[in-house]
């Protein structure tokens, strides 16, 4: 699992590559918390190179969504692969997080 970060307008685009599982997810959570502590209120998670996600990874998205909601911020999921999108759908996350097909659309959201 690797994480990249870049600013696009008011949004911070965080790319997460590889796998978010029970072993790697805590590191991803620490990175997101650091970015939010740095003042980010609009987070776009670029999932285009995320191969795998389990409930441990979903937990990080939910925790970030709760945190940003308290701060009147927002989180958008961009470009998930089919197998990852299916996990978001089955978990009911599609109803609580915006999921957009591309990063460009997600930064406009």
């Amino acid at each position: 699992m690797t994480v990249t970060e870049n600013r696009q307008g008011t949004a911070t685009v965080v790319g997460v590559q590889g796998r978010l599982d029970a072993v790697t997810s805590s590191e991803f959570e620490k990175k997101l918390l650091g970015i939010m502590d740095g003042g980010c209120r609009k987070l776009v998670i670029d999932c285009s190179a995320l191969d795998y996600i389990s409930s441990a990874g979903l937990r990080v998205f939910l925790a970030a969504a709760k945190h940003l909601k308290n701060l009147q911020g927002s989180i958008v999921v961009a470009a998930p692969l089919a197998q990852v999108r299916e996990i978001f759908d089955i978990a009911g996350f599609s109803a609580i997080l915006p999921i957009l097909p591309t990063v460009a659309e997600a930064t406009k959201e």
Partner: protein
Amino acid sequence: MNTPENKAGMDGGPVRRQEWRVPARMDGLTGLLAKVEAFLEAAGWSLAASHPVLLAIEELATNTIKYGYPAAAGTLEVVLAVTAATADLTLRDDGMPFDPVTAPPPDLDQPVEDRPIGGLGLHLVRRQSASFVYRRLATGHNEVHLIFHSLAATLKSGFQELH
């Protein structure tokens, strides 16, 4: 188990079978999942098709490691038999009795602020498997048996239903 390597599967294709035994510890999980993924890839399964199988192993093994062994160390056993169309997965552990099949489902209709963090893993496994059965063995083991159909097989059966 003594399934011959070259036994034909239900779809007529060859069956590839492999077993793994690992200590019931989180630091053994990454290596186990990498080996299972490589085995599935060699059997022609893409990562997209393998995802539900890998997720089931991770979710069930994580539960067992976290809650199944309050005192002693244990061993997890994974048996996987695959054809091009179907994956037949058996997980065994010697931890405390736990039936993941009858665990209560999460409430998915709550807004972000009320959603509990956690409790989703078994729900994902239940929804992505074609069969999900638990039994406690007389040997003192938990045994979970799951069946998955590959994406290609699902698309094919959908196609046949349409025609």
